C-alpha cells in the first residue's frame, strides 16, 4: 500500500495559522481533539458501568440466596422518597441537556443558569437521600454487623444485614458520584458565566454532561431494583 499525498496538517508549530488557545500541542485540529476527548469519556463511562455492574451482580446473587429477607427488607425503604428522587434526577438531566445546548450556541450566561439548576436538583437529591439515611440509622437498618433492627420475620438471618450492606454501598457510591458531579457542575457554571465556552470549544460541558446522564441512568436502575421489584 502506498498512501497518496496527504496534506500535512501544520501543527501548533506550523507557520501563520491561528490556533484556539484550548488546542493542545499534540492535536492537529480541534475536531480531532474533541473526538478524542469524547472517546476517552465513553471509555471512562464503560468502566463506571462495569463497576456498578459488579455490584448489581453481587446484589442479584445475594437476592437469590435470601429471597424472603430481601423482600421484607425492601419494605423498609421509603418508596415516595425514592420516586421523588427519580423525578428530581430526571429533571436535572433535562436541565443538563439545555446547558450543553446553550454552551454550544455561545449563550454562556444561560448555560450557567441551567448548570446551577442542575446543581440545585442534585442538592435536593442529596437532601432527600440524607433524610432516608437518617431514617435507616434510627431504625437500626444498617450494613453488616451494625444491623440491629428488631422484629424481622426470619429471626437471626444475616440476609437483612446483607441487603442493607448492598443498599448503602450502591446508593453510597452513587451518592459519591452525585457529589463529584455537583462540584464539576459548579466549576462548569463558573466558567460558563466567565464565557469560556463557545461553539468552537465546549468539550468540558459536553463530557460532564455525559457523566451526569450516566449518574442519572444508574439511579434509574437502582430505584426499581431497591424500591419497586418484589
Amino acid at each position: 500500500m502506498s498512501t497518496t499525498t496527504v496534506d500535512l496538517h501544520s501543527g501548533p508549530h506550523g507557520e501563520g495559522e491561528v490556533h484556539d488557545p484550548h488546542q493542545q500541542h499534540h492535536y492537529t485540529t480541534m475536531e480531532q481533539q474533541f473526538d478524542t476527548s469524547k472517546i476517552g469519556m465513553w471509555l471512562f463511562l464503560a468502566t463506571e458501568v462495569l463497576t456498578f455492574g459488579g455490584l448489581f451482580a453481587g446484589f442479584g446473587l445475594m437476592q437469590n440466596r435470601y429471597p424472603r429477607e430481601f423482600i421484607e427488607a425492601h419494605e423498609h425503604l421509603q418508596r415516595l422518597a425514592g420516586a421523588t428522587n427519580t423525578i428530581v434526577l430526571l429533571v436535572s438531566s433535562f436541565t443538563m441537556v439545555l446547558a450543553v445546548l446553550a454552551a454550544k450556541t455561545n449563550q454562556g450566561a444561560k448555560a450557567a443558569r441551567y448548570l446551577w439548576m442542575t446543581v440545585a436538583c442534585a442538592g435536593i437529591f442529596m437532601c432527600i437521600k440524607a433524610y432516608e439515611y437518617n431514617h435507616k440509622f434510627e431504625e437500626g437498618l444498617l450494613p453488616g454487623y451494625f444491623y440491629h433492627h428488631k422484629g424481622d420475620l426470619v429471626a437471626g438471618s444475616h440476609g437483612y444485614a446483607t441487603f442493607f450492606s448492598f443498599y448503602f454501598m450502591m446508593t453510597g457510591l452513587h451518592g459519591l458520584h452525585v457529589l463529584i458531579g455537583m462540584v464539576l457542575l459548579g466549576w462548569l457554571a463558573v466558567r460558563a458565566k466567565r464565557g469560556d465556552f463557545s461553539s468552537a470549544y465546549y468539550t468540558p460541558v459536553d463530557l460532564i454532561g455525559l457523566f451526569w446522564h450516566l449518574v442519572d441512568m444508574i439511579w434509574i436502575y437502582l430505584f426499581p431494583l431497591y424500591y419497586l421489584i418484589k
Partner: protein
Amino acid sequence: MEHTLTHGTAAGEHPKPAKNYLNETTGVWSWMTTIDHKRIGIMYLIGVSTAFGIGGTFALLVRLALLNPQHTLFGKHWVDAEMYNRFFTMHGVVMVFLFIIPSIPASLANFVLPLMLGARDVAFPRLNLASLYLWVIGAVLGISTMIMGGVDTGWTFYTPYSATTSAPLVIMLMAAFILGFSSIFTGLNFIATVHKLRAPGMGWFDMPLFIWGIYATGIIQIMATPVLAITLVLLMIERTFQIGIFDSRFGGDPVLFQHFFWFYSHPAVYIMILPGMAIISELIPTFSRKTIFGYRAIAYSSVSLALLSFLVWGHHLFVAGESDLANVVFSGLTFLVALPSGVKVFNWLSTMYKGNISFETPMLYALNFLVLFTIGGLTGIFFSTLAVDIHLTDTYFVVAHFHYVMMGGTAIAFFGGLHYWWPKMTGKMYNEFWGRLAAVLVLIGFNVTFMSQFIMGGRGMPRRYFNYLDQFAPMHMYSTIGSWILAVAFIMMAINLLASLKFGAQAPANPWGGTTMEWLTDSPPITHNFHEQPVLEHEPYDYRHREVTHV
C-alpha cells in the same frame, strides 16, 4: 541508510540537534510535572524495573527458604512458615500488580506507541501522568505493608482466610485498588490514542502489530479492571463491616469471591501476555529483515485473545466447587485459547523462513520467548483437559506453567523490547556481548528453575508449601540453584544497560534497520517526537525498499 517511509528528510540527515526530550528541560520538578509520554515512560520504566528487583528479591527468598527441607542456611534455621507465607505473597503481589501488568504497556508502550503512530503524544498526557502517580502511591502502600507485619494471604486474597487474617490486608487491597485505576488510565489513554492520533495515511491495518497488541490489552484493562476494583472494595467492606457476601461465617460464599476475582484476574493474564506477544511481532521481522507473515492473522488473534480472555475465568475453579456443567463449558472455552496463540507462533516461524536472520540481544530474547512460551502454552493443554487438571491444579505444575507464560513470555519479551528500544530511549548502544551472554544465561537459569517445578508438580508437590516431603528435596534444590543463575543473568543485564549510559556508543536513529516510525526520529527523540509529521507510505515491515543493515 535510506528511509522511504516519509516525505520528509530522514532523521539521520539532520545535523544532530543539541536538544532532545532528556535535556530540553532539567531538574527534578521538570520531570515530576512533565506530560511528555517519553519522560513518563522512562519514569515508569524505572518504577517497574525497581518493582522487578523487589519482586525478584522476594522470589530469591522464597527459593532460598525451600533450598532444603530443614530450611537451613549454613546449618542455621533462618525462616519460619509465617515469614515464608509473606515472602510468596509479596513476590506475587509485587510481580503481578507492580511489575507485569504495567511493565510493557506503561513503560515501553508509553514511550514508543505515539512514536510508532507518528503522533506527538498520547491522547491525554495529564491522565498519563496521573496514572504514574497512582502507580507510585499504590506501590508505596503495597510495599509498606511489609513493614506493618506483612500480608500472608497469597496474591489471590481468597476468602475466608483473607477476611480473618490479622495481616494489614486493607492497606494491601487499597494499594491494588489504586493500581487498578492506574492501569485503567493507561488503557483508556492508549485506546483513544490509537483511534484518533494515527499519522496521516495510517489505516488500522497499517499499524505496527505492537499497536494491535497494546490496543487489545487496552480493551481488557478497560473492561476487566473495574470489576477487580469493586471486588476489592467488597472484600475491604467484608473485613470491616461483615456484610456477608464472601465470608462464610456470615452467610457469604467464598466461591463467589473466586468468581469475582478471576473474572478480572484471568483477563489480567492477557493484559500481561498480549503486550509480550506484541513485542515479539516487532522483533522477529526486524531481525529477520523480512516482512511479517500473516499480518492480519496476528492482529485478529490479538483481539480474539482479548475477547476470549473474558470467557475462561472458570478454569481456575475446576476443583473449587463450581458445577460440573460450568466446568465442561469453561474447559471447552479454555481450549479455544490455544488457537490464536498457535496462529501467532506459526506466523512468527513463517516470518523467519527465508529471512536474513541476525542474533542481536533483542532477537535472542525473542527466540527465548518462542521456546519458553511454547512450553508454557503446551502445558496449558494439560490444565484445560478437565480430568488431568484435577491432579495437577494447585501443585507446582501450575506454578511452573504460569511462570513459563508470565515470566518466560511477558518478562522475557519485556527485556527483549527493552534492549530493542534502549538506543531509542537513551541514545546509547549497550554492549552486545554482555547482552547476549545475559540472554543465554536467562534461558538456562529459567529452565533449571522451572522445569524442576514441572517435575515435582506432576509428582504431587502442592504449591505454597513451606514444609515438604524429603522426596522433593532434590528438585527444590535444583530450582533454587536455577534461581541464582537467573539472578546473575539479570544483574549482568542491569549492569550492562546502566553502564551503556556512561560508556555506550552514540546510537544512530535506526540501529536495527527497523521499518516502523519510531526509527524515523533521532535517538533520543526531540521533545515533540518528530521534526516533521511522518506520513505512511508503505505497509509496516516492508523490506523491499530498504537496504539491508547489520550492526
